[in-house]
């Protein structure tokens, strides 16, 4: 067969895309402008392979924070708040942000990773305090419920689902649902409400945020031994639609399918968030055009002058004086600096910390699995619509392996006309993480464009006419995956323990990659460090 306008390479790209997304393979022949962005693989590999020069300069500081994601920025903010100014934060990339990174163009700011937070439960004290300080919680009503800043609450309509050739409101599939489906929806929703209210024999909520404030009651922790699919089977949930919905939730929040993540984590998604608002429904989320980049910017503001980017710590070791030495390589000056500090807060993923920290190096690797992700930001000449319910913030496709897209322009206050940026997500979790990661890094920009457009085209046939630019970010280690056993393992709990003056903070220590976990760990680690530095 002769296909004149499809080159072999492109055809293979399409085939790969079709295999991943079961999308159709019609493709546009024009090259779409855009680029691959994201964490610098060159710097990451340099860190992995080693070979940095010995330090040629020495600096002395009270505290050094390693890693400028949410945990690191939270730690920096907390130190500043508690009056410590003698610290620096070192970030490998040229800018901070981690999973909360964002980008911007003439049309809109847009997220590169995490893009919303839910209303924090009362257990998330540190997070609530932050939201109060940032003005996100503007006040409280007579009954003490927080009043949230209205423009940060996701604007209505929040969610829609593409199913059977049209859009419906909400993500639980309503169109074409049978009575049996509806019964299971009701049973499932009821069960989750039960878990939301449940408390263990230790008096704690069964599921809460932060994870480690949840009950240790065996009645609930036993759920961490099975997968979410096993739990659904055991409970007799047969509805394919319900099972899709639960799988979508697992992929969306944990980057893993319901066959991969533990039932404890799967239920946590639905049951942990009991935050309330005086001026919104309880299931509402807070979001911004740049996603959690908004929070990241706010955190950074407090300690902007103490952040040093383009610096990778490559050796963190206890010092003879009881402090800690951090050898860091400056990519701009091509030389290493030794930071002599009284304490260090290591805010990088555990698998990186194990390479950096001398005391961890000999130890067996923690059984942590990180799911790769793909995020594409598409600049469109106008917001796509479609048959059925109106365009929403989160737009999900029932029969796709992608997670659909969020509209970065949705939170704008002006009347939408003209161009928009949409952020397409996919948790690459259909195969083993290492294989998916390797596959993701092999793909070129053109391959990604094919894949993303093939997915969108089935829902928005006009997408090829609307698209102006596609930027893509492939995250190799996008999210910690809460596989069975991780959340309740003693090993995970021990990972957060400081080793002498070396403290740790990262969401993977919680087993869940969410803002609240990273932030709380950053704050707690900084508080512990601040306490340890206080003259006795």
């Amino acid at each position: 067969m002769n296909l004149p306008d499809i080159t072999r390479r492109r055809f293979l790209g399409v085939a790969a895309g079709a295999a991943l997304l079961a999308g159709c393979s019609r493709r546009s022949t024009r090259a779409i402008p855009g680029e691959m962005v994201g964490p610098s693989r060159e710097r990451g590999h340099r860190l992995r392979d080693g070979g940095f020069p010995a330090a040629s300069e020495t600096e002395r500081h009270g505290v050094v924070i390693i890693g400028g994601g949410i945990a690191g920025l939270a730690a920096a903010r907390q130190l500043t708040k508690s009056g410590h100014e003698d610290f620096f934060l070192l970030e490998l990339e040229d800018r901070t942000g981690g999973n909360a990174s964002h980008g911007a163009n003439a049309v809109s700011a847009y997220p590169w990773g995490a893009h919303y937070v839910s209303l924090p439960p009362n257990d998330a004290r540190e997070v609530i305090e932050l939201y109060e300080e940032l003005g996100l919680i503007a006040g409280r009503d007579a009954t003490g419920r927080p009043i949230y800043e209205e423009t940060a609450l996701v604007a209505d309509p929040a969610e829609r689902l593409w199913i059977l050739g049209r859009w419906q409101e909400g993500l639980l599939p309503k169109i074409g649902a049978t009575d049996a489906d509806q019964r299971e929806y009701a049973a499932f929703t009821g069960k989750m409400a039960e878990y939301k209210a449940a408390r263990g024999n230790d008096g704690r909520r069964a599921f809460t945020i932060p994870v480690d404030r949840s009950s240790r009651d065996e009645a609930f922790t036993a759920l961490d031994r099975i997968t979410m699919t096993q739990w659904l089977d055991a409970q007799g949930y047969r509805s394919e639609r319900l099972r899709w919905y639960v799988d979508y939730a697992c992929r969306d929040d944990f980057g893993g399918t319901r066959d991969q993540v533990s039932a404890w984590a799967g239920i946590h998604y639905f049951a942990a968030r009991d935050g309330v608002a005086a001026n919104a429904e309880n299931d509402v989320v807070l979001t911004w055009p740049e996603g959690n980049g908004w929070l990241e910017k706010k955190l950074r503001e407090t300690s902007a002058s103490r952040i040093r980017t383009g610096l990778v710590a490559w050796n963190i070791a206890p010092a003879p004086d009881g402090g800690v030495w951090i050898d860091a390589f400056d990519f701009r000056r091509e030389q290493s600096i030794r930071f002599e500090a009284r304490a260090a807060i290591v805010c990088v993923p555990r698998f990186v910390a194990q390479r950096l920290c001398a005391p961890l190096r000999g130890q067996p690797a923690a059984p942590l699995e990180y799911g790769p992700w793909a995020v594409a930001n598409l600049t469109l000449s106008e917001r796509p619509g479609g048959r059925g319910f109106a365009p929403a913030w989160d737009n999900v496709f029932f029969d796709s392996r992608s997670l659909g897209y969020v509209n970065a322009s949705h939170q704008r206050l002006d009347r939408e006309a003209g161009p928009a940026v949409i952020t397409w997500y996919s948790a690459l979790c259909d195969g083993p993480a290492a294989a998916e990661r390797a596959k993701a890094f092999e793909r070129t920009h053109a391959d990604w464009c094919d894949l993303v457009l093939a997915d969108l085209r089935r829902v928005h046939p006009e997408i090829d006419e609307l698209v102006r630019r596609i930027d893509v970010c492939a995250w190799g280690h996008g999210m910690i995956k809460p596989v069975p056993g991780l959340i309740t393992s003693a090993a995970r709990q021990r990972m957060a323990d400081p080793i002498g003056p070396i403290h740790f903070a990262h969401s993977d220590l919680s087993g869940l990659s969410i803002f609240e976990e990273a932030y709380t760990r950053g704050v707690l680690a900084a508080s512990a460090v601040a306490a340890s530095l206080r003259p006795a």
Partner: protein
Amino acid sequence: MTDRSTRLLFLASVFVIATCGLIYELIAGTLASYLLGDSVTQFSTVIGVYLFAMGIGSWFSKYVGRNILGTFIQTELFIGLIGGSSAAVLFLLFAQVNSFRVLLYALVLLIGALVGLEIPLLLRILKDRLAFKDLVSKVFTFDYIGALLASLLFPLVLVPHLGLVRAGFLFGILNVLVGLLTIWLLRDQVAWARGHAGTGLLILVFLLTGFAQSDRIMAWSEGATYSDPVIHARSSAYQRIILTRSGNDLRLYLNGNLQFSQRDEYRYHEALVHPGLARVPRRERVLVLGGGDGLAVREVLKYPDVREVTLVDLDAQITSLFSTQELLVDLNAGALKSPKVRVINQDAFTWLKQQTGKFDFIIADFPDPSNFSVGKLYTTAFYREVRRVLHPDGAVVIQSTSPYVARKSFWCVVHTLDASGFVTEPYHVYVPSFGEWGFVIASPQPLAAVADLPPGLRYLTPETLAGLFRFPPDMGDVPTEINRLNNQALVRTFEEEWKQYVH
């Protein structure tokens, strides 16, 4: 074929030609007055141009040499094509082309010239078959009888029962049939008869299709959507702008929704502006949000103590239309051209967020909350911004849809303003073209009871004013949600209520 039957054929065609010719002329005249208004001028100029064009056609007939019969048949077919589809073409293109008049008169000229060509050619064809005096007498008799028939058929049968577009196609078909009959009967005398017949059949199929699809054409052309003739239709980046006119009634529609009718808009705009503006202690700086038609501004400018009016309307097409188009400038009394008025084409929400100064009175005259993007302009978040730029003893008035048709929507606006920390005074007025319409005055502090109405109002007096604030039980207060960005309760309620009303 006998000479007699040939003569009959030709005289019959004179009759049909005359009828068709006049029908095309009437269609053009009627359409011109529909679309451009001022029927006397339109009919007069269309008839004048048409007759003049017939003269041109007659003059050109002398250049037709040998092939008179062939030319006659071709003329017949082309008049059928052009005249028959003229109504459809004009309807479809009036909104799309900028110089609609050029297109209109070009078509009138073309049809007139072709019709003008017909009779002289026919006279020459028949000149050897009839005595000159008989020829002239018969041709003109049939011509005038045809004209009489057309002028009676047109208003009594065609326009009411077929509509302009279908009537056009019907007479085009008759015209082509005459041509085809001529070809058939005189096929041995006509050069290239098969070619003519083929062309004629093609045109016939085209016109029949047009006849069958007339309803769809009218639906496309929008003319059918509006009960009155459309005189202006443009799409801006934000909306479809339609002006219709019937007699002295000018109406503005945005996305198909009536914004005002010239007959009773004074009721709406007096009620929108004065109950609030007449009661604030100071009115130096007034802000109008939406209301790009300048009609609210016209009312505001009736107070001599108003020093500056800022009008913020998203759509530059609307504000420029209402500051340049003569009829519309007459209607808003040149309000948008007043030196006191500053027009800003920006989204009201984003503009408001950037403001630091204070206003004494604010008018929010937005479209009804029929979609999520307009719904944002009725939320607590928006009213918080309004409050921020409002002088503490000033007031804001909100157009808030019909308390009769959309009772919950209306009270939802009231309660949303209550929740935003305002003292509210809901009221309503009867506007014949809209029905019962509702407004809310909202102020940080209670307003003075005394209203200082300007002179020259047509509807509001101190007596009528007092009545506006009384709500009969069928429009009375009902519990509602508060409209917020994150629930869009108003848009959802509004859609529910109007859906029930329309169906």
